[in-house]
């Protein structure tokens, strides 16, 4: 990947991130922060490759910690986001239980 292509990817991805969030209602701020927290759990694949190429005990130790933390980021982010969004579902389909207003 040449530098200039990488720069294009960076620029387009940044705009994408901005656009995706731009018109989000306040009620979804916390779930969305949690969701984006899950998405950067992709650091797991980088940590796997880093540990996979580690040789000295120091590199292996840091690499192991890296994979451990990254897996925690991905799994924790998913569970927490899913639990939050589940509640939005129940409030929607449940609707007003007893005659509101």
């Amino acid at each position, binding site marked *: 990947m040449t*530098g200039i292509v990488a720069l294009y990817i960076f620029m387009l991805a940044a*705009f994408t*991130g901005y656009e*995706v969030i731009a018109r989000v209602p306040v009620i979804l701020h916390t779930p969305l922060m949690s969701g984006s927290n899950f998405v950067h759990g992709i650091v797991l694949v980088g940590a796997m490759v880093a540990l996979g190429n580690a040789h000295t005990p120091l590199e292996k130790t840091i690499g192991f910690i890296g*994979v451990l933390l990254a897996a925690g980021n991905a799994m924790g982010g998913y569970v927490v986001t899913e639990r*939050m969004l*589940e*509640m939005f579902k129940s409030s929607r389909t449940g609707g007003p239980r007893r005659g509101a207003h």
Partner: protein
Amino acid sequence: MPAAPTAALLGADTLIQASYFVTAVLFIVGLKRMSSPVTARSGILWAGVGMLVATLVTFAYPGMSNYPLIGAAIVLGAALAWWSGKRVAMTNMPQMIALYNGMGGGAAAAIAAVELYRGGIAGYGEATLAVIGGLIGAVSFSGSAIAFGKLQGLIKRSFRFRGQQVLNILILAAVLACAALLAGHFNVSPHVVTALFVLALILGIGMTLPIGGADMPVVISLYNALTGLAVGLDGFVMHNAAMIVAGTVVGAAGTLLTQLMAKAMNRSLGNVLFSGFGDTAAGPAGTVTGSLKPIEASDVGVMLAFAQKVIIVPGYGMAVAQAQHKIWELCQLLIDRGVTVRFAIHPVAGRMPGHMNVLLAEAGVPYDLISDLDEINAEFETADAALIIGANDVVNPVARTDKSSPIYGMPILNADRAKNVIVIKRGTGAGFSGIENALFYLDNTRMLYGDAQKAGAELIQAVKAIG
């Protein structure tokens, strides 16, 4: 990653790259779906599938070893996170997000550390990216850990001392010096790498400790964006398109989200990070006059039952007491009696924007009863009672009147304009920002002391007793 150019490896590489591409698409679609209440729930599933695909194909990455270690780390990390994520109460979600986000930052720092210790990075460009990604990740890691400690109540107070900002700037300068040595290949010894990461970790702690708890949502969101950026930078170093795209998207989205949150509090990001919110916590003495007037639950029950319109203002106190179910039960009784009930949500009520919406949704409150600040503020004047449940700073009228107050200028809910104000509160202490609340001392305000859940149960009994 130098891989032997055999046909088999090239095949594996193509498969991996294609899978990463699919993952990037799934992430973006997932985030897009998460930004609307109708599709939000499926959004996380899309993103989850993307993560699973990327993780599985990475096992086929050419030239890797240490598979048992990798497997053990994934199982251990995922199991611990799954266990804690399932167990945690909905009220503690904000600090869990901080915790998991910090883990991501730590992982990004670890990747950069492995690459730097190995000395395998050629070229100034990639070395620079690795160094910056690593130090941002390390700052996010230790900073998020402090944010977690503060919200979890492990760190009770904000640590501030004279010259703190100067010290932070000195540490930052030292971090940047190490970074320059490494990036420019002037000195790539392991000691410099160690110094870089140790100093960056200290910087994260030093930056976060003085920030008051009320500002933590903004800070967590900022660290979330920083972790995304660190992951993206690491992606360039690892030549990993999925990391570049996902990290950068989160970095940009997180930055915007941080700005939106800061805006909701009517403060700039720089103000949040460097002003030491709550420094003037003691406040200008004597600005608050009058006394706190307690009231019994039975009296409040009568007041609410015979009201035309009641506006509920929930805050962190409701979250701590897990009172949302009791409060909704109370509201249903009132609605059955013909009372108009509305919930007024301040953008930063609780510890995160939308925190209260999540809790009320959990209790089953239909969202057409829930209004945000702009919608509801004019209605307080026509309300017979405003019921404040563990909210404090977001209803403090000094934000409108007292220029010397640290929260001056923050938009507030005009609960003081209701005919009667009932405040459910555990004790007589000040709010999270440490500022005395003038609302509590108004002539039309009564204090109902007690845990919000217990008070809710008492109010239900009181309303039922009226029959």
